[in-house]
């Protein structure tokens, strides 16, 4: 047992620093995906709840596609397909070889899936805010943007925080898929460690424990955020 723990040592003799670097990449990939996913998800939710039929249709097609494909397949299509498309575009100007950055490909693929699910959360939150509120705000002389920022948005956050927390936890776990496109995330570095030490049980257990700790910290943090945004809510019973 002690010699197993010694394998986690920092530096060239152990795998501790590799696992830490992988964890860092996993977390930064998830954090980098989040703002794009949220922004696109919000835009699509606005389109879904707008009165305009064509906008609704376009938004629903987006959600249907990216909710219906396996995340792994979306990732591979973005990675290899992006490569082909970029190659063709670049071939028009230069004959240099372009390579799709794995991190960006992962961010795009995870962002597409995340935003599709987030748009559903936001859309149902929008439906939970009575139309009279932004109307009343505009009647008081606010601009549409002010009404959105000061009246709708704070309530939107409160109504969607629960759903978004779940999506974040899913995103954190889904980052493990990028290990298949040679991105050195936690799971891939673990694979490398296993390949070299032949200790799969130990190293995969350590990796899963790290994922578990990440989920635990996220859940705690998001719980605090949720309590903060809901502090104005009256408790029933």
């Amino acid at each position, binding site marked *: 047992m002690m010699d197993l723990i010694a394998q986690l040592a920092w530096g060239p003799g152990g795998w501790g620093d590799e696992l830490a670097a992988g964890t860092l990449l996993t977390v930064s990939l998830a954090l980098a995906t989040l703002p794009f996913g949220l922004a696109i998800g919000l835009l699509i939710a606005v389109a879904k709840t707008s009165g305009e039929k064509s906008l609704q249709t376009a938004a629903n097609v987006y959600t249907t596609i990216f909710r*219906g494909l396996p995340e792994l397949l979306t990732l591979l299509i973005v990675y290899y397909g992006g490569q082909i498309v970029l190659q063709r575009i670049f071939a028009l100007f230069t004959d240099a070889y372009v390579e799709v950055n794995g991190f960006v490909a992962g961010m795009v693929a995870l962002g597409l899936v995340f935003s599709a699910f987030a748009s559903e959360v936001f859309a149902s939150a929008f439906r939970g805010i009575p139309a009279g509120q932004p109307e009343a705000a505009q009647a008081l002389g606010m601009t549409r943007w002010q009404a959105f920022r000061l009246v709708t948005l704070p309530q939107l956050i409160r109504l969607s925080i629960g759903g978004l927390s779940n999506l974040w936890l899913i995103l954190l776990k889904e980052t493990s898929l990028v290990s298949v496109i040679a991105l050195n995330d936690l*799971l891939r570095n673990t694979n490398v460690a296993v390949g070299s030490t032949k200790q799969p049980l130990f190293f995969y257990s350590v990796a899963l424990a790290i994922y578990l700790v990440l989920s635990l910290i996220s859940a705690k943090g998001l719980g605090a955020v949720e309590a903060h945004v809901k502090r104005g809510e009256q408790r029933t019973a």
Partner: protein
Amino acid sequence: MSDTTVQIIEARTPPPETIRKWTVSRIVGTALCGVWIALGVGLVWSLYSAFDPDVFFKYMPRMADGLIITIKLVVFSIVLGGLLAIPMAFARMSKSDIIRGCAFGYVYFFRGTPLLGQMFLMYYGAGQFVDQLQSVGLWWFFRDAYNCVLLTFVLNTTAYQAEIYKTAIESIPRGQHEAAESLGLKKGLTFWKIIFPQAMITALRPLGNEIILMIKGSAVASLVTVFDLMGATKLAFSRTFDFNVYLWAAIVYFSIVETLRRTWDWLEERLTRHLVR
């Protein structure tokens, strides 16, 4: 007042037809719909123009076999996981701290870690114990990647389904239990005839989502040499570098998920029609 004449309201012209103005949102919406149509046409064109009959007829049978494996994986894991999930849901609601704690730990572990990692742990971890597994006569099971994947999926979906059943059972008001008890019904009978049917209706929607998640999640089986639909697709791509195979796979997965989603919507509407006021 006797000379009141009947006045007929003269016919008026109908109100003018409202013309839908080209607002910004309509322009954007139409443009985006146009983009989707263009992408759809592009997809069909790409599949048609780069259609390679050699690749198609060589790998289509493999992909069909892969599809069968995917379906088998999903059906077995959902059914077996469902059977295990009911006792697990009860363990989650148990009065004993130890049983409840263990069940909570199980569910937390499987929901808090990536399925891909769980699968690697099972598949490669079992490989580390060849001798021990051989001595207890279980090696034949773990030797096959398919069995390891199936076992991981069953354990994983058990955790998710247990949470679904627990939430559903807890959503049934206490009064239902009390009313049944005051009528003299036994505990088991109360559960099967009163609580369970109502809970299943609540569980229907999240259960549908779980099946869809499982179909999509089953694609990771391809990463431990199981030739499911995704595995067959990756094999075809690695041998031919024909990107279209991924698009075929995407169409197949998408059709399955979308068909299931629509069937499930219909099923839910049908089963809850007595609840509509």
